[in-house]
């Protein structure tokens, strides 16, 4: 655990990618295989489940620290992180130990099923022998909330650096549903058998946002345009008579979308599609319809009927059991089209159409119609480009619609967490409804650190009332709020809910009276909802 803690400290102390990669690569060269494997698992989102719930954990920490629970609870929002609060309030360790990372994870796994009274002493025993930084990491593992600022891409690069294998090969090996308990470092990383897992997906190729005019990309005939669908990116894998569905977040969704079972019957084995999952009934339905299909645990007959789903396939990664990612898009597209040409509707896999255009100007006009097509904008893909892994600049661009915006008044403020603890970063905004301000959204992001500092100082001076951690502030500041979608919501006082709301500008020039009205929002709902 000490070695892993040193790695964490090194990663935490720098924002420089190279320093992080070097630190990780050094770890991958030195650490025991078991620890390496767990390290890879942790950095690729394969965290062990929490061993104790947060309420029990807080009570245990307060008891161990000899402070009343309320005092612990008051300290937590100021620190901004539960595991860190615990690591800081506990008394110093009474003995030292140097058990490896794997030991602690195994310990946590072994107690997961025990009654609370038997889990407690195990956690206390760990706290007694770990120093503050180790305790912090251990407690992070306990809470099941282990997230560190290392992307999978960075981790893969470090692993490539340490093993001498290339990044793309490793990225492929790391995909899929392995855990450190079902494989070994040798089998996963060193052995050369990428076909071992029939369900293994390919790393997704991710697009960059187009910032400049598309003219800068070259001539239109080098590019393919498609709708940028407003759904969930997914990979449908048909191999050996089975089907597997993965989300971009590498969650296995197969059981939640039984409608793709028929695809394995009709389409040939050795086929992998990249596409978008959409709620679909002869055409795309709104995103909100898709949501319960992801969030609800059980897939009922009613849910399947109310929220039918299709995959709009836009790429073919494997054909006839062969990895074809190296082929140019136009060849992959040809194969994709011929595969789906005669596919019956019950496969629920459809071709995401290519939008014909011969000039950037006419495409710009198409883009403006995206909202009517229930799309977020356009995707631009270079026709002679292979399918790359991860986010790479150059061949794939998303050309999104400009967001919708309203000017709104800040009425409540709350402190953030983690890096933003002690800063007021979570705000509630309101629009005019007659002479009253009606809250309609929260927003957390979009301001610079300097602006957050400034608004934090202002909130402290202009608090009118407190409701726990929430402060009502003087309605004095107007912010421009941007969002991607608007829908009806009976749960909210305003009757509407926004998608991806964020602050884009602090409108210091705007008096409060000139903020938008609820009527303006209703009109947007009519047009775009």
């Amino acid at each position, binding site marked *: 655990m000490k070695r892993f803690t040193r790695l964490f400290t090194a990663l*935490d*102390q*720098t*924002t420089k990618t190279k320093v992080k990669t070097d630190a990780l690569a050094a770890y991958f060269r030195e650490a025991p295989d078991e620890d390496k494997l767990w390290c890879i698992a942790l950095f690729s989102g394969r965290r062990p489940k929490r061993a104790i719930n947060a309420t029990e954990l807080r009570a245990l920490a307060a008891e161990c*620290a000899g*402070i*009343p629970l*309320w*005092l*612990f609870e*008051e*300290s937590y929002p*100021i*620190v*901004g*992180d539960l595991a*860190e*609060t615990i690591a*800081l*309030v506990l008394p110093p360790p009474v003995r030292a130990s140097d058990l490896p990372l794997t030991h602690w994870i195994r310990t946590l796994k072994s107690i997961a099923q025990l009654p609370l009274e038997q889990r407690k002493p195990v956690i206390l025993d760990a706290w007694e022998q770990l120093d503050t930084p180790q305790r*912090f990491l251990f407690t992070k593992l306990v809470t099941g909330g282990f997230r560190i600022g290392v992307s999978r891409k960075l981790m893969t690069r470090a692993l490539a650096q340490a093993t001498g294998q290339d990044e793309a090969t490793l990225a492929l090996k790391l995909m899929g549903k392995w855990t450190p308990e079902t494989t070994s470092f040798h089998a996963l990383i060193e052995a050369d058998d990428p076909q071992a897992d029939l369900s293994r997906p390919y790393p997704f190729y991710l697009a960059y946002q187009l910032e400049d005019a598309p003219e800068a990309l070259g001539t239109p005939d080098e590019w393919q345009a498609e709708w940028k669908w407003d759904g969930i990116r997914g990979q449908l894998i048909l191999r050996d008579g089975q089907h597997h569905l993965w989300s971009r977040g590498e969650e296995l969704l197969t059981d939640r979308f039984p409608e793709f079972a028929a695809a394995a019957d009709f389409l040939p084995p050795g086929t992998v599609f990249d596409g978008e999952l959409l709620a679909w009934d002869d055409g795309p339905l709104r995103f909100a319809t898709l949501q319960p299909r992801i969030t609800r645990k059980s897939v009922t007959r009613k849910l399947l009927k109310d929220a039918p789903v299709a995959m709009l396939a836009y790429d073919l990664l494997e054909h006839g059991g062969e990895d074809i990612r190296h082929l140019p898009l136009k060849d992959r597209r040809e194969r994709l089209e011929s595969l789906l040409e005669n596919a019956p509707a019950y496969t629920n896999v459809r071709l995401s159409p290519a939008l014909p255009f011969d000039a950037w100007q006419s495409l710009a006009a198409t883009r403006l119609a995206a909202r009517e097509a229930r799309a977020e904008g356009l995707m631009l893909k270079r026709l002679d480009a292979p399918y790359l892994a991860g986010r790479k600049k150059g061949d794939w661009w998303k050309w999104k619609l400009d967001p919708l915006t309203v000017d709104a008044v800040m009425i409540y403020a709350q402190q953030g*967490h*983690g*890096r*933003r*603890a*002690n*800063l007021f970063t979570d705000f509630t905004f309101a629009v005019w409804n007659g002479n009253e301000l009606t809250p309609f959204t929260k927003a957390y992001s979009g301001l610079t*650190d300097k602006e957050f*500092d400034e608004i*934090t*100082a202002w909130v*402290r*001076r202009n608090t009118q009332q407190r409701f726990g951690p929430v402060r009502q502030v003087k309605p004095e500041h107007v912010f421009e709020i941007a969002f991607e979608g608007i829908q009806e919501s009976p749960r909210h006082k305003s009757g509407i809910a926004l998608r991806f709301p964020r602050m884009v500008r602090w409108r210091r020039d705007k008096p409060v009276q000139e903020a938008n009205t609820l009527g303006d929002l209703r009109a947007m709902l009519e047009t775009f909802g």
Partner: protein
Amino acid sequence: MKTDVLTFTDRGIYCPAGDFHVDPWRPVARALITHGHADHARPGHGRYLATHAALPVMRHRLGEITAEGIAYGEVRRIGGASVSFHPAGHLPGSAQIRIEVGGEVWVVSGDYKTTDDGFCEPFEPVRCHGFITECTFGLPVFKWPPQARVAEEINAWWRQCRAEGKTALLGAYSLGKAQRLLSLLDPVGPILTHGAVEATNGILRAQGYALPDTIRVTPDTAVKDHAGALVLAPSAALGSAWARRFRNPSAGFASGWMALRGIRRRRGMDRGFVLSDHADWPGLQEAIRATGAETVYATHGYTEIFARWLKAEGYDAHVLKTEFGEEEDGTETTGGEAA
């Protein structure tokens, strides 16, 4: 406040029997000052009284003031009150002020730390009936590591910077923290200072405080002549054009707030060192216990939480609103002076 010794006004803590204020934030006729930080020693008062050791810096910062010095422990009669100043361990010359009226004793702590930093006059507990305590770090999550360990971290960082051909830029408040850091540095290489730090250095050296040699950075300073230097500057200067002259920098910051990962990361410094001139949670408990006081007023910091804790511990505890710094105040996190 029900006591006869002190009352609380919109100008600050007031002693009716002696007709004076302690660390007032608006102009008053007579001010007793605990220490020279700007939120405690403000301009515009008629007369100032502070320790001999605190006065030179105050004169430097406040300009022409009518001020009188007093030795630690010396008792002075002001009207119906007896006052004396006692080391607070916060920075050179800092004091707690003891005020006695008709047998009732109150102590205003100013800012303090209970551990001896080997540089300024160490904290001395003073018995009293009522204690006005700061609680900047009045939460159980704040427990300072031993100074020697932090000093070793700082020196190791400096050595590493030298080895990698980097300039170590260390941010700290120019009065107090900067000089305490100087006293902790190993003579690994030259120490360059920002003008604000060097001004205070000069004053304290003249008073007899031992500080290592330092080189003030001026527009003519040839940075390349000082390879492997450590640069000591107010943290605000680290992010400014002033710091751009130092190539390949590694920025560090020394403050109690560096105990929190969120703040450490938000500051965007390469290194954060946990070093504070305020008492940590155990230090506050220890100090309050040592006064023997029954009544405690908490000010400057997590006052409401701290007072609630003290009440549960059996004290007659209250929150005292002051303008030394609001609850959860961000001054420290943005490089302010009390860190």
